């Protein structure tokens, strides 16, 4: 697995070899984006509680204009909750979330989402193509069937994750990594500009990891923003440009090279800091 990723990273420096989606931001939506572009994601004072216990505490974060952003922190730090709260899936106690300068609820067509794989029943009677086509439902609108054009778009998204041959498979017959790719393809089918991904690399095989990474770099090259919960400190530096360190509240954020330091990690992970500092790769500047 290591040689695999290393080889890719070496070939990569900045040359987003995008085949698909490398066109300038297509923006056919009724509410055009202002120029200059406001931050893709601005979170202010976001607080979330489950049964009175705070899970997120006054989180404030402004995403850079573009790039791949990793959300990093220990288990129970509220990483998934941050994404869900941004998307309006869990109730907020306080705070606002804006995407491209407007409340995120008004920007739904610009938002893509990859939830955790365990969040759905994979025995559900649908095919991989059916699931990916769900990424088009926002465009299709009420009552209408999925047209041929939308099916083509879904199939194209499956191609981008190397799963076109599996379009007709019932999703329960796919391996874990393949299911993760289907979820990613569904988000691609949304043709969004800001993507939220919840641990897309968790428990996948090396080939899937490679495929997901290719897609992330394509999205980056096409000027999309990706906010990605990530659990593997070893690969943060190789995969992402920016990092948001959090543990209920924001500990630090910034470029990976300057933010993923032993001191800041110690503050993020608390007592477990020694082990995590030791796990850090020697060089964090794999990406310029």
């Amino acid at each position, binding site marked *: 697995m290591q040689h695999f990723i290393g080889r890719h990273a070496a070939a990569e420096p900045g040359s987003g070899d995008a085949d698909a989606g490398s066109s300038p931001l297509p923006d056919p939506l009724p509410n055009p984006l202002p120029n200059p572009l406001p931050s893709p994601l601005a979170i202010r004072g976001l607080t979330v509680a489950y049964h009175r216990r705070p899970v997120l505490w006054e989180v404030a974060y402004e995403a850079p204009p573009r790039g791949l952003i990793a959300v990093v922190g220990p288990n129970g730090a509220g990483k998934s909750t941050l994404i869900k709260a941004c998307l309006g899936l869990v109730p907020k106690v306080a705070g606002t979330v804006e995407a491209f300068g407007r409340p995120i609820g008004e920007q739904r067509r610009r*938002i893509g989402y990859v939830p955790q794989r365990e*969040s759905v029943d994979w025995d559900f*009677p649908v095919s991989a193509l059916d699931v990916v086509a769900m990424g088009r439902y926002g465009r299709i609108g009420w009552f209408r*069937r999925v047209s041929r054009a939308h099916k083509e778009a879904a199939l194209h998204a499956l191609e981008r994750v190397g799963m076109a041959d599996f379009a007709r498979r019932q999703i329960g017959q796919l391996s874990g*990594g*393949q299911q993760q790719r289907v979820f990613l393809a569904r988000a691609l089918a949304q043709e969004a500009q800001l993507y939220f991904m919840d641990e897309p690399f968790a*428990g996948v095989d*090396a080939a899937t990891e490679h*495929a997901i990474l290719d897609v992330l770099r394509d999205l980056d090259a096409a000027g999309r923003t990706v906010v990605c919960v990530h659990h593997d400190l070893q690969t943060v530096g190789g995969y992402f440009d920016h990092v948001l360190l959090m543990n209920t509240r924001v500990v630090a954020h910034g470029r990976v090279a300057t933010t993923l330091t032993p001191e800041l990690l110690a503050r993020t992970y608390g007592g477990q800091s020694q082990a995590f500092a030791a796990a850090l790769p020697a060089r964090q500047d794999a990406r310029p």
Partner: protein
Amino acid sequence: MSAEALTGGIPLEELLRVLFFQAGFNTAVVVAGTAALGLAGGTVGTFLLLRRRALVSDALSHATLPGIAVAFLIGAALGLPGRSLPLLLAGAVVSGVLGLLTVQALARHTRLTEDSAIGAVLSVFFGLGIVLISYIQNLELAGQAGLKTFILGQTAAMARGEAIAIGLLAAGAAAAVALLFKEFRALAFDPGFAAVQGWPVARLDLALMGLATLVTVIGLQTVGLILVVALLIIPPAAARFWTDRLALMTWLAAGIGALSGWLGATLSALLPKMPAGAVIVLVAGFFFLLSFLFAPARGLAAAALRGLALRAGYAERAALVRLLAAEGGAPAPVLAAPLRLALAARGHLRGGRLTGRGRAAARRAERNRRLWERFLIDHPTLLPGQLRWGIDDIDEALPGDLVRLLEERDAQERNALARQAPAPGRLAS
């Protein structure tokens, strides 16, 4: 054996006449109305089942009883004729929805799980209904005898207009599901994702529960409130055994529901002393049993056959590999007669020796086994479900890039092994 013995004492002619709508207009309308009810139950139930709301509708149906009783009392107090059906059903809707909201409130605002909330609401509302009905019986008001039919259902008492109304409403419910098919699919599979796209998930849930309420209430008279939930659960559960495609599952559930309603109403028209609901549900249960045992996709018999095929497949491949090894000097395997016959029938074995085709198949089996093993070593958590790993062709089971990776690693490993243990010939030189 006479035809009457076959049909349990019912004259065969009579059975056929009812079955094919020849037994008078009234019976025909009742049978058609019940079939439509079954069809609606199957379509709405498909999504209730997939949304995991099937038991909530059981609480809903039991909670209708106090509403029926109270509506009857109100009707009597207003001096309406004893048994005004629209009023009774309106009462059923009100208390059914009240029960539903109670379940939701209990599950959301307390630490009770949904199933305990369902159990509590179902029994308390039903108990209240029984007490009210007993009270009404002591009042000796006109028409109160009809109230008990709501508990177990009765098609015989149904008027023509009521049956037509049931049929139309049921058709409407099925049509609503057809219209909202895409929306309900998104809701049932991944409500979070649907919400991110802006679909009003709470309102879609409400629409689904509203349709379930509609089916329940129009089913009260024929099937009765105890068993009406069966019309929502059994047809889709039976349909799930036959297919992995949602559209087909919905059609099958609709068909099984309609058939159960049709056959069940026919039987109960001929056996007026039997509660119609029980007869209809038993017919649906019979279809469920058939599906559970014999459906080719997920049925019990098919699973047993697949198990047998899996063992045979392993044995066949292992035999091929050992026969190939025997050609290289390993001891020849002793094969059981059925295995020899099977290999000979495939043209892999002739006169106890591998044919050319057999040799090629043995090499393929060996490669397949090696790559599956490599996959199992490298990705123990990623085994695809419903695949016969080790037997199924790995090229069809996994993406091409993953198979190439496995091949690469397998080759590396074997090279490394070869270097560790150099051939004896090379040592001598």
